């Protein structure tokens, strides 16, 4: 079975400071990892994904994530947070083998960026 853990329900950061949203995963074989963002009353918006290759993945709106196989982590980062980044962030995993045809999501982390 595949699973994702987002250990923080909420992350608070001051505008202009770097932000990190944590994600760890469990999957059989190689993982495909995704980050999505959800604004209030909206669907999920794709940010970035790791498939293979370079462990540092760059995505939309200045976000990036680092795949760490030994720590089974895929933390989302941004060097300088904006108030407009405030939203709900979901990490998701899909196994290369097994796990069926679905994404398995974490419980989400609410990011709050304050002035």
């Amino acid at each position, binding site marked *: 079975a595949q699973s994702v853990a987002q250990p923080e329900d909420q992350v608070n950061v001051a505008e202009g400071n770097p932000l990190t949203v944590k994600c760890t995963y469990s999957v059989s074989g190689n993982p495909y990892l995704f980050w999505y963002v959800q604004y209030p009353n909206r669907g999920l918006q794709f940010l970035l994904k790791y498939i293979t290759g370079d462990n540092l993945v760059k995505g939309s709106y200045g976000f990036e994530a680092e795949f760490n196989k030994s720590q089974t982590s895929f933390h989302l980062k941004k060097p300088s947070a904006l108030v407009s980044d405030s939203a709900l962030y979901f990490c998701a995993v899909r196994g290369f083998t097994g796990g*069926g*045809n679905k*994404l398995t*999501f*974490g419980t989400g982390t609410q990011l709050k960026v304050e002035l």
Partner: protein
Amino acid sequence: GAGVSQSPSNKVTEKGKDVELRCDPISGHTALYWYRQSLGQGLEFLIYFQGNSAPDKSGLPSDRFSAERTGGSVSTLTIQRTQQEDSAVYLCASSLAPAQGDTQYFGPGTRLTVL
């Protein structure tokens, strides 16, 4: 280009009634997914369609739930004899192909409220 669209955006129904939720995937996308987002359960996979293959129904919570995809495009999720625990946001997603690494793009969702 146009993204995934869903209708209605909101649906309020009485317990015991049947409801139909519609999803229009991105043109050319062969894979279509339904997920449910609720406070208690987070984001859960419901069903997956790929071309003319038999759908993966492994996530449907009960036999009151069914879905079809006509002509390899539009999909309808039907919930019969709705219960209050069916209240949730129903999200549809599509991807270009069913490969595990393909990005799933989500629609805005249908918020279902069962009174």
